[in-house]
């Protein structure tokens, strides 16, 4: 069974301790077990770009969609036997120590091909042709009722264009499980019984030329009208030695927006005539 692990700032964030950050060993273990489909770290929310379409007008803003949504710092997609195995894996991720891990099952579609996976098996072998963005699809009551359409046509179009690498819909938050580790003890909690107004309903991984194209792709998603879309650039681990050195290097760019501003991106979009 496939799960998305979302690394989110929980309600009791702990001080980050580099000595406790054994993300390398965690990844190695996942690889060795053959349960990992894909995983990425995301640039902080300062680099988020929010895309909405309201009344036919494209609204793009710098920064995250702020209303009561957790900040997601990264994600993994795993394929394991059951929820207990997913919890066990989630509980050993450093994010479980410093924040919390949200374990979300994917929507299981009736009539899906047996053995079908969220992430194509050959993805790792494909050359990277552009910039990759995670497109978070956020369900929000502020959207237009008629915008909640079937994204099937969007998926076909973006797959054909090569702009979408994979993606899927998540089960609602009530089916989520939250995992934390405090003082060595694994704490497992149920998802919210009463659903929040806004929640991450799914995500897609885009591969595009630049932020302008990512915005254009996002704006065509039906949930741009029915909810909110948030674009997040990836933040690959770089070559700055161990994680302590990496932390020192990254601290300078952590709170800085490296992406073009929404205005610049919109201007680029207009100039390209898209």
């Amino acid at each position, binding site marked *: *069974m496939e*799960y998305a692990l979302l690394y989110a700032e929980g309600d009791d964030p702990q001080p980050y301790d580099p000595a406790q950050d054994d993300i390398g060993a965690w990844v190695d273990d996942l690889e060795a077990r053959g349960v990992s489909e894909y995983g990425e770290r995301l640039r902080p929310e300062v680099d988020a770009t929010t895309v909405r379409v309201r009344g036919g007008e494209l609204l793009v803003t710098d920064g995250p969609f702020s209303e009561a949504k957790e900040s997601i710092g990264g994600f993994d997609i795993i394929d394991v*036997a*059951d*929820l*207990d195995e*997913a*919890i*066990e894996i989630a509980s050993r991720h450093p994010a479980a120590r410093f924040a919390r891990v949200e*374990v979300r*099952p994917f929507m*299981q579609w009736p009539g899906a091909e047996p053995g079908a996976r969220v992430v194509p098996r050959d993805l790792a072998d494909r050359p990277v042709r552009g910039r990759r963005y995670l497109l978070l699809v956020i369900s929000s009551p502020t959207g237009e009722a008629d915008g909640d359409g079937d994204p099937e046509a969007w998926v076909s179009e973006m797959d054909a264009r090569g702009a979408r690498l994979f993606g899927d819909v998540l*089960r609602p938050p*009530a*089916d*989520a*499980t939250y995992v934390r580790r405090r003082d060595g*003890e*694994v704490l*497992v*909690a*149920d*998802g919210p*019984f009463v659903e929040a107004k806004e929640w991450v309903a799914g995500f897609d991984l885009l591969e595009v030329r630049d932020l302008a194209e990512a915005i254009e792709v996002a704006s065509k998603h039906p949930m741009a009208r029915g909810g909110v879309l948030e674009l997040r650039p990836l933040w690959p681990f770089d070559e700055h030695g161990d994680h302590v050195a990496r932390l020192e290097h990254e601290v300078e760019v952590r709170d800085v927006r490296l992406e073009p501003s929404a205005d610049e991106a919109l201007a680029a979009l207009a100039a390209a005539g898209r």
Partner: protein
Amino acid sequence: MPNGTPPGPGLPPEVGAALRRAFEGEWARILATLIRVTGDWDVSEEAAAGAFERAAATWPRDGVPRTPGAWLTTTARNLALDRLRRAGVEAGKVRDWLADAEAEGRLSGPPDPADLVADAGEPLQDDRLRLVFTCAHPALPMPSRVALTLRTVGGLETAEIARAFFVAEPAMAQRIVRAKRKIAHAGIPYRVPSPADLPERLNGVLAVLYLIWNEGYLASSGDRLQRLDLAGEAIRLTRLVAGLLPAEEDVRSLLALMLLQHARADARTDERGDLVALEDQDRSAWQADELAEGLALLETLPATPAPRSPYRIQAEIQGVHARAADAAATDWPAIARWYDELHTVSPSPFVELNRAIARGLAHGPERGLHDLRELERTGRLAGYHLLPAALADLHRRAGEPGAAAAQYARAIALAPTAPERRYLERRLAALVD
């Protein structure tokens, strides 16, 4: 009335009794096994309930079968098969299931002690344990865990559970449906946790049982002080889990705790349903069999070094009360020491309150009053009626009726149930006499 056991008006008493026995002994086993082999909770529940309904219809005519459990199991299996076939489940899957079930011999026979044999890798293979651990999975909200455990393991009807928890029936039904959906959608496994996870997950199971117990033993609201149906259900379920996990100290401790408290149930209220304090209870009205069973369970507990688990400590405290021939003979210093230990493993203002009372009775009212005043100063029990009630009682014992009366008045104003209010009013009145 438990699910599927309606000894209706026309049912001969011996058939009703046989049905009830079969229900108590077989419901959880039949349902748990059906869920394992079909993977479908709803089909399994309907089939299990259907088997008991069919028994109620045919046993009066044909007589009670020689092995009622096997009869019910076979009937439930056939009903489940029919349901699956009608729902269009592939014939192949149904055939596989039948072959598996028959090869394992689980579905066709009476209770099989081999179920309890430990296997490599997994501690115990009994299907009822799978059911218990799945219903109490930490990914489910606590109210859902309680409801699902009562519904599936206990076989209670949704309406009964709704009444017991003062929840509207449709809301309770929804809670159970959502829990079952989450089990399917979130991939909650139907199995006994791995040895590494077992202690933690067992704690989750015990928390569910303890919650059912507490809800039944001391109603959190309403006019009835005790709801014996729920307390009895908690004992039945805990007895089941204790039987399935005989090596677990905490399960036996919890069962002992429940039995020793339940033994006093009849003496705990008077004929008007009002509360009778422990020291005023007629000890001859305590249930001798439950006391004996509870005390015998305590004897079986290992000599674990302190600090022991909260269940163990609370059971030991009940044991001290149960062993006292009368209220005056109660070993209060021993109880005060147990509360010291409880405070180290599970500190809470409620433990401090009980410890203060025990110290007051062990070492003189002044000692207890001192602790209670300290506790009151922290403000952590503000609004809780038992704090002024304890102050009142110790002032009374200290020969300070004025101070006692003032605290009783505070306690009466805060008491959440009518019986507790009446009890405090009587204590206040007795002060004046």
